[in-house]
């Protein structure tokens, strides 16, 4: 009986008959950790689906989908905005060479996402939000830094007629692909690397926990750029406060 308790620490409806050597197909499965899908999961799903459909219906009754004037290739919209999920990229286009803002940066993000599981493959930290308390710390550190740094940079750029953040890279005596492309791109990669190293050294984070921090910075950065394009850009793609009545008027 004592051996029972040692091998199977929880309460069971069965007893240990014999301990044998060998492999078992029961990997990561315990007989009593599970619940039947019917009714537990099905009920949850059904209720969630009803709430989503209800919310969608209410939104669709009270808010009409926008419809502008008939398309006219001769009269440009001002500001001409991409769909909202690309506004982060459109904002980057203002500050960077289009090859980097429109192609290389999105490609880097996608490839980075695809690569993550091949560099962080240990089972530790799976199944827990932010993996650990230290993971939360990494997310707070990197997220906090991003929340301060990017709006500050955008504010500096907004106050500057050339949209430059610190120095106007366009005036450097270098090819545009390097001055407004490679240099800011390298600066971005460097900032992310710096955040990673900071998590590892300062917080003693594992690889996974530091990645949580970097991912947080990336997501928040994208969100801030998108919100900027959505609410802080107006006529001529200039900086406006969202409540400025002249923001979307044709000038």
């Amino acid at each position, binding site marked *: 009986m004592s051996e029972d308790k040692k091998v199977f620490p929880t309460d069971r409806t069965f007893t240990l008959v014999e301990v044998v050597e060998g492999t078992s197909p029961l990997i990561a499965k315990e007989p009593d950790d*599970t619940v039947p899908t019917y*009714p537990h999961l099905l009920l949850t799903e059904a209720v969630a689906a009803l709430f989503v459909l209800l919310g969608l219906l209410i939104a669709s009754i009270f808010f009409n989908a926008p*419809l502008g004037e008939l398309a006219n290739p001769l009269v440009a919209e001002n500001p001409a905005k991409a769909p909202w999920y690309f506004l982060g990229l459109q904002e980057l286009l203002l500050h960077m060479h289009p090859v980097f803002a429109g192609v290389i940066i999105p490609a880097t993000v*996608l490839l980075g996402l695809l690569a993550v599981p091949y560099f962080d493959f240990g089972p530790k930290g799976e199944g827990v939000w932010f993996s650990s308390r230290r993971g939360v710390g990494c997310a707070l550190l990197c997220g906090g830094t991003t929340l301060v740094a990017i709006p500050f940079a955008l504010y500096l750029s907004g106050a500057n007629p050339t949209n430059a953040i610190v120095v106007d890279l366009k005036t450097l005596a270098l090819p545009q692909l390097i001055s407004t492309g490679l240099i800011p791109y390298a600066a971005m990669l460097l900032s992310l690397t710096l955040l990673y190293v900071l998590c590892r050294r300062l917080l003693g984070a594992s690889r996974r926990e530091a990645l949580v921090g970097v991912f947080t910075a990336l997501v928040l950065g994208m969100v801030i750029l998108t919100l900027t394009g959505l609410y802080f850009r107006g006529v001529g793609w200039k900086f406006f406060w969202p409540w400025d009545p002249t923001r979307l008027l044709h000038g």
Partner: protein
Amino acid sequence: MSRTLPGRIWRSIYRQPFADEEREGARVINDSLLMHLHPVKLRRHGLSITYTFGLGGISFLLFIVLTVTGVLLMFQYLPTTEQAYADIQRLSGEVFLGQLLRNMHRWAAHAMVLAVFLHMCRAFFTGSYKPPRSFNWAVGVGLLVLTLLLSFTGYLLPWDQLAFWAITVGTNIAGYAPLVGRALRSFLLDGIVVGQGALLRFYVLHVVVLPLVLALLVGLHFWRVRKDGGISGPPLPGGGHE
């Protein structure tokens, strides 16, 4: 054989009576084409709402809503530069429940982009990309890209100023790709500016090609969730992991 007619009809479809015990509950899942996407049993952990927030399921539900509303919209819409805008206006004015239909399609599309993105964040923050789920994570990234493309191609169809200039800006971005940019842009637009050719291409991509690819990938995604051992969760205290 059941003695009543409704009972006989029920049994012909579902094989078992209304399930009120566990063994019959298992058959509800196993004996049904739709339900057997689910495992018969799942780890208690996977039920926790604050673990998944149901985001994957919500994305799928929105895709179904978009398919249904989208097919209904197709009955009222012609993808030509002369007709498209007038069709959308007619939809809001004359067609029974047309405005509601269009609103549902539009808001569900925005919601799906958001839900898929948040689902990816959830998967990342819970470490659900770790082996054996690394390939399914890649499939998920593909699904996010497809969702964005679906939304983007749909954006042009009302053929109003918002659509025209958003797609002009968007395809200009695609045009900056080194080497293939200009080819990609003229492939998407069937020309150098947004016009009839672009409208037709976006329409076909939006209503046939992309939904089909997305549906196939969703099937793969769901299948892999099951094959990779169900929804992710913390390793068991007994050290059940490899």
